[in-house]
């Protein structure tokens, strides 16, 4: 293969080369293969059909074996997974019963909506302040008043059940990884891949091994949320200062005491940030899990979108967004809440004011329920709907913006998307493999080169090269536009404390939205197709680039900036000669994240009719084709990991050279 010979022949050239020659070495084989495309043999341009390695068949053999053959003597693996899945039925039933369904068997109603509202408000107040109290109580009230009660409470119960389970499993994995190095070296690469697998890839095996339905959706949610918790547990426990660990040891802690009384409490904040992540991932997944039949807000949203009832979809979207913001704010507040002392002579009431208030809320709401049924359920005749408003908005958009939007859409397609797509499809696959391998070699040596080359070859020989190219083209276009829009926004926002605050708040808020939500406005504006898909990707993937640009620019060491000021730099010179070069590695990491986000979104955008690899995954989901789903998922993950490995290697070495790391 051209790429491997390339590595072999250039390996001994170890002397430091200038950036120019280095980038030439990286680009030359690529350019050569690209320009010589017409003269190359066919196999070097298109991946020959008969070269396809039957990964899919292998995966399916494995899946079928697990599904049908008895492995544990009496039952098959699928029986086992289905049995395990039954375990989640109970907590789910209990929480759902508490929040919305009640317990008809023992004649107990669900909690009154007033009680839930009061408790939510108290929680917000306890964790931060009255504003958070208002937000959480308001969120609950919104669900009741605007007729989203049942749907939202079902969604909430899945999150409330799935998050602790996923959190505990991830926590356990993290602890084991920190305590057992062999387990860490095993699990960390796996976590990397799992975290770059698109949502749908989790759904297909679930559908095969557990089936479809609400329970299956809950399980998918649990599994999806495990990796971030495991990762943050590892990070948190490793971040505990060695001195603190030694202090525990000197106090005579056993290993277990060190872990339980010293390390875990000291890592509390990282762990709680992990919990926040878990909750948000759960919410994002439970919306998407509606594809395998999870009930709740997501299911309703999917249903309305499929019926192109955009107004009603928007109404659901708002409810999901509101829930996302509230859950995020609450769990974030929990993570950043610091303990503070109470007066030694404080009474019970002063020590636990919130427990007392909670008891009061419970009693009060029960009392009210006895007086009026309105306290139990929001009266349906007073239910408001925002759908007419959204419908009017959608109608207005369609009527007034139809013309300009059509023009924009066609122009995009004709002058940008189609040319770039054709360009991408004209690149010989060997050229891409050579480019990736050479970049890997230049940035991280032979090991990195082989890793990323392995990723590319997997995609090439899995049999979905052309589909992958379409995905790559959409991601590339979207990421380019993101950079063009996001960089100036980031630069603008980094100028002052106030702007940074605003931009960060917006980023934080938008990032909490489940990705599926972003499809609603683009369907409204562009209906379906590539332009719609790319727009959705852009909105979603804009967040990290803005965030990292701000972070990078604001974290340039103050003395260096001051040195620039004292040398008489203008603001423009400061930006371009000092801030930008120093912030650049960070910005590249932002672009890396943007690529990851874009890959996630491009797969979800399959829902609105793209022709890329996402569409194939979507089809695999419909036909329950687990092997294909898995291989396609890996293709997507490997695309992301290729970019991730290359960019991270570059940014790390660059930061080290700048003395920033």
């Amino acid at each position: 293969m051209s790429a491997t010979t390339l590595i072999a022949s250039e390996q001994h050239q170890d002397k430091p080369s200038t950036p120019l020659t280095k980038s030439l070495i990286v680009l030359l084989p690529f350019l050569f293969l690209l320009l010589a495309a017409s003269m190359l043999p066919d196999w070097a341009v298109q991946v020959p059909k008969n070269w396809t390695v039957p990964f899919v068949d292998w995966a399916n053999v494995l899946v079928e074996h697990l599904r049908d053959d008895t492995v544990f003597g009496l039952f098959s693996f699928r029986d086992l997974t289905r049995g395990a899945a039954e375990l989640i039925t109970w907590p789910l039933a209990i929480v759902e019963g508490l929040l919305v369904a009640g317990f008809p068997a023992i004649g107990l109603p669900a909690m009154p909506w007033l009680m839930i509202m009061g408790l939510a408000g108290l929680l917000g107040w306890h964790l931060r302040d009255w504003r958070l109290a208002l937000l959480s109580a308001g969120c609950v009230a919104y669900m009741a008043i605007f007729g989203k009660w049942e749907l939202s409470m079902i969604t909430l119960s899945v999150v409330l059940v799935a998050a602790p389970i996923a959190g505990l499993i991830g926590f356990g994995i993290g602890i084991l990884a920190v305590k057992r190095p062999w387990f860490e070296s095993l699990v960390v690469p796996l976590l990397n891949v799992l975290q770059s697998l698109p949502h749908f890839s989790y759904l297909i095996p679930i559908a095969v091994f557990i089936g479809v339905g609400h329970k299956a959706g809950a399980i998918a949610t649990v599994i999806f949320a495990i990796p971030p918790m495991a990762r943050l547990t590892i990070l948190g426990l490793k971040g505990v200062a060695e001195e603190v660990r030694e202090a525990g040891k000197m106090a005579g802690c056993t290993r277990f005491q060190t872990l339980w009384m010293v390390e875990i409490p000291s890592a509390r904040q990282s762990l709680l940030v992990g919990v926040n992540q878990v909750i948000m991932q759960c919410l994002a997944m439970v919306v998407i899990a509606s594809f395998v039949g999870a009930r709740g807000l997501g299911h309703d949203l999917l249903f309305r979108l499929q019926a192109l009832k955009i107004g009603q979809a928007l109404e659901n979207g708002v409810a999901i967004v509101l829930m996302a913001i509230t859950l995020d704010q609450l769990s974030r507040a929990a993570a950043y809440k610091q303990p503070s002392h109470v007066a030694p002579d404080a009474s019970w009431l002063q020590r636990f004011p919130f427990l007392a208030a909670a008891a009061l809320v419970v009693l009060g709401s029960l009392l009210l329920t006895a007086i009026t049924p309105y306290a139990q359920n929001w009266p349906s005749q007073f239910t408001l709907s925002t759908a007419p408003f959204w419908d009017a908005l959608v109608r207005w958009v369609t009527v007034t913006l139809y013309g300009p939007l059509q023009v924009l859409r066609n122009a995009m397609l004709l002058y940008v998307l189609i040319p770039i797509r054709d360009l991408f499809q004209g690149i010989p696959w060997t050229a891409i493999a050579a480019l990736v391998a050479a970049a890997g070699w230049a940035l991280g040596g032979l090991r990195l080169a082989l890793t990323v080359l392995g990723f590319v070859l997997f995609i090439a020989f899995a049999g979905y090269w052309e589909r992958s190219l379409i995905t790559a083209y959409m991601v590339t276009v979207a990421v380019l536009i993101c950079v063009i829009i996001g960089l100036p926004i980031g630069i603008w926002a980094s100028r002052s404390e106030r702007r940074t605050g605003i931009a960060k708040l917006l980023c934080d808020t938008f990032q909490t939205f489940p990705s599926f939500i972003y499809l609603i406005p683009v369907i409204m504006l562009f209906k379906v197709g590539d332009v719609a898909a790319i727009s959705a990707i852009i909105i979603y993937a804009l967040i990290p680039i803005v965030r990292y640009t701000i972070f990078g620019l604001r974290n340039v060491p103050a003395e260096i900036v001051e040195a620039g000021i004292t040398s008489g730099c203008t603001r423009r010179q400061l930006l371009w000669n000092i801030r930008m070069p120093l912030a650049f590695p960070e910005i590249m990491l932002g672009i890396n994240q943007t690529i990851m986000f874009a890959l996630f979104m491009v797969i979800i955008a399959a829902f609105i009719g793209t022709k890329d690899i996402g569409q194939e995954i979507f089809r695999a989901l419909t036909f329950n084709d687990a092997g294909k789903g898995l291989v396609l998922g890996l293709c997507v993950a490997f695309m992301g990991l290729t970019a991730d490995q290359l960019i991270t290697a570059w940014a790390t070495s660059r930061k080290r050279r700048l003395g920033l790391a």
Partner: protein
Amino acid sequence: MSETKLACRNLWKLYGSDPSGFLRGQPGTPSIETIRVGGYIPAVRDVTLEVMTGEILVVMGLSGSGKSTLLRCLARLIEPTAGEVMFEGRDILAASEREMIDIRRHKMGMVFQHFALLPHRTVLDNVAFPLQVRGTDRQKREARAREVVELVGLKGREGYYPRELSGGQQQRVGIARSLAVGPDVWFLDEPFSALDPLIRREMQDEFLRLQQMLNKTIVFITHDFDEAIRVADRIAIMKDGVVEQLGTAEELVTHPATPYVAEFTRNVPHDRLLSVRAVMAPASSRTPETTAVRAHALLASVARQVLSSERPVDVVDDAGMLVGTLSRDSLIDALYSAEVPA
């Protein structure tokens, strides 16, 4: 001084891929170059020392000279590459994990440079932590913790969390925690260097006050010579993992064993360090004058008298016998010339 409390013999700590294999493969004692060329980082090299019961041994040296590593080897927080560590006459490197836990629970305490408090526990709970770990019941351990908290002057702050305290207060909590179990041996790794100078001074006084009451066996690390002189019975000076010299402050100044020690002690204020005995001239036996000064007095305390006297001042020992004379010139030489009288 009485018996040996803590000692180490030929203690080594190297960092690298296979340090003990490397060390065993060396004929004799490898030089620092051999170690570095072999790809190892020498942190502690062939250290032998003893700490007596009730003694304060200060370990000094520049950053990276291996002080912390030595201390952690003595407490067996890290495993030495070779050598022995004797605690109360037994080799603790041979002790099992269980025995080690037992020793730490009852006989050792440590104060850390960056306090190392547990952020989620109140002052009282932090101090009670070592007691909790060894299973003392709540009432007893809180009573004891209150006692120690009061001892370090933090009464009234028992319910505070570490982040609600200043640096000096946090280190008091660290000291209280290390004293809670009433350890015999007290390890302090640069306990005051994260504090600003005024607070540091105050904490040193506090430390000396406590030591006067408690009379522990102490290994104290610092890189501040003034601090060393204030607290030390004996001082060990380390360089590149080796103890260059171990002795009283006066010995280090008057008889530096290596040029490095001489360099290290050059800027020390001699008047607070040297005694009259170190700089006096011998005298023939006769009856001392009534204005005579004591031989073990520090120069600072007699400077005024000697400098205002025309003639050399007589020096007597504790028994009142004349042992020498001290002239104005030799005092000035001792204090202000670079040459230290032998």
